[in-house]
Structures are given as C-alpha cells and as structure tokens.
C-alpha cells in the first residue's frame, strides 16, 4: 500500500456483529410473524357439515337427494357414500337422469357413481366425506372430498 492509498479502517468488533446480527434476527422473526397473518386460523363462513339423520333411516340400496345441501346420499351393502350434485364443469346443479346424472347447463353426463360419461366436465362428481356425529347421526362434510369408491361402514 502506498501513501496515496486511503488508510484502512476496520470496524469489525463483537459489538457491531452482535448488534447487527440481533437486528437481522429481530427483523426475520417479525417477518415470519407477519407472513403467518394472511393464513386464516379459522375458516369463515357457515359450516358445510350437514347432519342428515340416523343411519337406520336409510335402507340398503337407497338413494336420497338433499337439494338444500346439494348432495345425494347412497347406501348399498358396502356402506354409505355421498356424491356432490355440483357439476365439475362450471358449477351448475346436476339433475338425476335414467342412468346417473345430467347437467342442464352444458350437457355433461355422469353415471350413477359420478364418473363422467359425456359432455365437457373435466373430472367426476366429487365423493364427499361421510362420518357420524357424537349422537350417531350421519354427517356429510361438503368441504372434504374422499376418493371415489370410499364407503362408510356403519
């Protein structure tokens, strides 16, 4: 180094490191807290868990449409299952047809297990989670889908 070069200054000290480090840790912790905020801790809106009645009210081989809750409850020898009546194309309510379901809006057709047999629907009708309440009544949770073919045994 010649005399023309400016003198070196070294300010690295433990205090500087510690203070700067703690500053960044503080900012990081704050940021972490802030990023948690937009994730809702409890989902707003009315519950979409519907109590449908005691299991004995539905005999094996029955199918019961619940228009208000937008679903159809089936029971066969293997158990209960519930299929949503909301068309997977653009959300219209499907109607019961001879061999399954048909959507009046754009002509999607589904069989009685919800699989697509015609029309623009991209995927089968959702099967909804069936369980039971504490007092024994059947509950269908319209917010939870289960794989097709899942049966709820009573």
């Amino acid at each position: 180094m010649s005399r023309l070069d400016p003198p070196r200054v070294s300010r690295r000290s433990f205090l500087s490191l510690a203070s700067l480090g703690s500053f960044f840790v503080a900012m990081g912790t704050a940021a972490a807290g802030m990023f948690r905020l937009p994730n809702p801790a409890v989902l707003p809106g009315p519950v979409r868990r519907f109590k449908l009645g005691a299991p004995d009210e539905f005999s094996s081989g029955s199918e019961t449409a619940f228009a208000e809750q937008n679903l159809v409850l089936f029971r066969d020898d293997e158990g209960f299952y519930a299929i949503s009546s909301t068309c997977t194309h653009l959300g219209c309510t499907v109607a019961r047809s001879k061999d399954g379901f048909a959507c009046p809006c754009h002509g999607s057709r589904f069989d009685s297990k919800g699989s697509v047999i015609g029309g623009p629907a991209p995927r089968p009708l959702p099967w909804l989670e069936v369980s039971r309440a504490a007092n024994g009544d059947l509950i269908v949770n319209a917010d939870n889908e289960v794989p097709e073919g899942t049966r709820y045994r009573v």
Partner: protein
Amino acid sequence: MAETATREFLHNLHELPHTVKDACFRLGKEPESEREESHATFHNLFLHIHSVRVHLRTLKPTLTFGLGLMATASFIITIITGVLLMVYYKPSTDLAYQSIKDIHFTVSTGRFIRNIHRWSAQLMVLAVLLHMARVFFTASYKKPREFNWLVGLGLLVMTLALSFTGYLLPWDQLAYWAITIGSNIANSPREMTDAIGITKFFDPGGLQKRLLLGANYVGQDALIRFYVLHVFVLPLALVTLLGVHFWRIRKDGGLAKPEDPMGGLAEWGGERRPVFQPLATKTYGLMALVKGKRPPVNRGPENTVMSWPHLFWAELSVLMVTVAVTLVLSFYYDAPLKELANAAIPENPAKAPWYFLGIQELVSYSAFTGGLLIPVIVVVGLALIPFLDRRPGGEGTWFGSSHERAVFWQSLFFACAVTVGMLAFTVNYGWLRNWFPNIHQLWIIAINPGSLLVLIFAAWSLFILKRKDSVRLSAVSLFTCFLVGFTLLTYFATVHRGPNWHFYWWPSQWPVH
C-alpha cells in the same frame, strides 16, 4: 476438465455466505476505507439521501433525541401493520366491528399487530409534537430551513389527520362518538355565522361537516371516506411531504448544528487539526456542485465523521428502540375497543382522541373559537415563526441564545399559573352565559377562556419582546406558553372532565353508569 470443475463448484458452494454478502455491495466487498464507505452511501438507493459525512455534533443523542427518526420509524411501523390489518378489516358498518373482533381473537398475531398499529400511531403523534418542540428550541428553523419548518407543519397536520381518520374505523362506541364530536367541531363556524345571521348564505361549517361525513350523520358514507383517506390519500400525501422534508434537510446542510469556533482546533484521529468555518450549505456531495462560498480544497474533516457506519448505526438503533418500545407496550396493553357503535346510546363523556382534547376543552366554551379560530391562529402563528425571527445565531444548540433558558422557565411558570387559574375560575364560577343568560353569542365568541388565554399569552410575549429586546426570546416565550397550554388543557380534559363535561377530581368519582 471435470475434476477441477467439481472442485470449483464445491469451493463456490462453501464460500456461499461470504459471496452472497459481498454481492450486496456494489463495490464487491464490504467497505474498508473511507472512500469505499462514501461509495457505499452515495451509490445506495436507500442511503444516498444521506450525506457521506456527518458532523459530530449532530450525532450526539441529546441534540435531537432521534425524535424525527422516531416519528418516521413509527410511521413505517404503522404502514406495515396497517397493510396487514387491511387483509382482514372490512370497511362496512355491518362488518367493521366484527372484523376487528376477529382480528383480535382469531387471526394469527392479529391481536399483537393491531395493538402495535394503535401504539405506534400514538407514538407517532407524540414524537412529531416533541420533534417540533425540539426543532424550535434548537432554533433549527432559521434560514435556510424556513421552508422545511413549513413542510414539517404540513406533516404535523397530516399526522393528526391520519390518526383522526383511523379512529373511526373500528366502528365502536369510542370511534363513533369521537368522530361525532370531531365532525361537530368541523361544524363550528356555524356558531359565528349563526351569531351574525348569515348561515343561510354562507355556511362553511355545514360544508366542512358534509364533506367529512358525506351525510348529516356519521354512517356508512363517513366510514368509507375516512377509510379511503386513512389508507390511501393521507399516507400518499404524507410520504410525498416526507420526501420533501428529507430532501430539504440535505439541501439545507444537514441537521442544524452550532458553528464551530473560527480558527479553533478539532480533534480527529488523535491529532488536533485546524477547523474551518462550516457553511450552512455544505453537503460533502462527492459528485455534486454545491452552493457555497468556498470549495473544500485541501481541507480537513472539520469535525465530521463518515455516515457509514456511524450515522447508520444511529438511525438503526433509533428505529429498533422505537420498535422495541412499541412492542413492549403492545404486549401488555390492548388497543381499546368498546361496544358496537350505537347512535341511541351516547358515550358520556364523549371524548375526542387525546391530541384533540385540548381543542375539545376550548370548544366547550365556544365552538367557533375553540374549533376554528384558535387552531388556525396556532397553525398560522407557528408558520410565521421562522419569518419573524430572522436573526442568525444559536442554531443547533438547546436554548442557544442568551437568557433563553431563563425566559423558558419564566414562561413555563407564567403559562401554568394563567392556565390553571383560568380553568379553576371557569370550574367554580362558570362563564358569561351563567351570569348573563341572554347575552349575545358574539360576546361569548370574543371573550372566552380560549380567546383570553391567547390574548394573555400574546401580551406576555410582547412584554418579553420589549423587555428583553429580542425577537427570538419573545418567540420562545410564546411557544412555551403554547406548549404549556396545550399540555395542561389536554391533561385537564383527559383526567378531570367526566360525564356531561363536569369537573371531577378523579375518574373514580364519575357516577357509575
């Protein structure tokens, strides 16, 4: 060849922390010399508004107490927490209150963030008021900083407006009735136009109130207007003014500091070097032509130090102290939230936010004088200070000119005595309308505790002007009187006014309702 490439890759991976850190600096590494430090300041987007060197005196904590920085830090905190609150707040009279309750009870960190927002807003108002007092008492408004003083006054008004507009948003009893009071204060010119009978033709009071509320009552329209003002219009205006404010600090030569003695010696790096008269307009810009009489050729550092890192340590620490204080307050004290706003059940007493309580006390004597006349007189008076006191000298030092401290204390006691006396008189004996029930309202507008205080303080400052033969000292006396009056009136209206605005010694004596 493959082997050296693999080793190169692994080496780079190993050096990752250092290389990432160094990449943040355009220089390619951390600054190690003064020239590199200037570089780091000058070429940084966020930092280049600072000068590369700062005067030692301005770094002393007791010069400014970091109040301006504290106000800015509080502002930044309110912006960040405000945006977060906007994710959940709903500005509708049906939904607002419930959304605040949801933020408090269910949102992750919602309670904490809402408290932080409230406390940092209060701290910001406090900080700007103290900052104004600091600037005044260190005479930092003198030439060439007059314009910045005016910008600062604009910032003060904007800060109060931000706080006021935010006050309504929770839509609880506190909010609803405070804004009812506030909008009626806006309506206060009515008192004057009614008294002289011209309301039919000229009704600025009614216009102000309608502009604020969008209706004749505090309702959904008022909520939306206040919301828009609070989250967009006012922050934008404030940020703009803040930019001008910081720019002017720079262009006016940095923080006001006392003159270094001519021909004196300063200590630097263990040596004593000659000190040259620093010019008010000296900015130490490396690549800018600055206005000044003498170019700094072959001159010593003149009691300055590099901004990097000293100034930035100072700023960072003020920011974090503000954050820490806000967090501690927010951890222990929840932001208030009363019952849902109910137009049928008035809060009694219905009080404006604390920074307006002094005005509310004055308004209780005369709406026009307390709500319009005196605030305008105060703002205009404050604005005139740098244009009436033009004698240079004493900048950058607390109570810089002679006798300032003495005048300050004298004015303090005088103003205390007069204000307390005036309040005690009105509490015990009432005022004009108690003695002369049919007196014309104009008499009350002209002669009431507020107007009398203004006249007495003005008389006192004229007395000081003559007696001490100094404009600055008379300004000090008037400003001190104003500060004392503001503080005492705010305190009085907070603690000693209860239901129906009656006098009580302590809130515990209020009748339980």
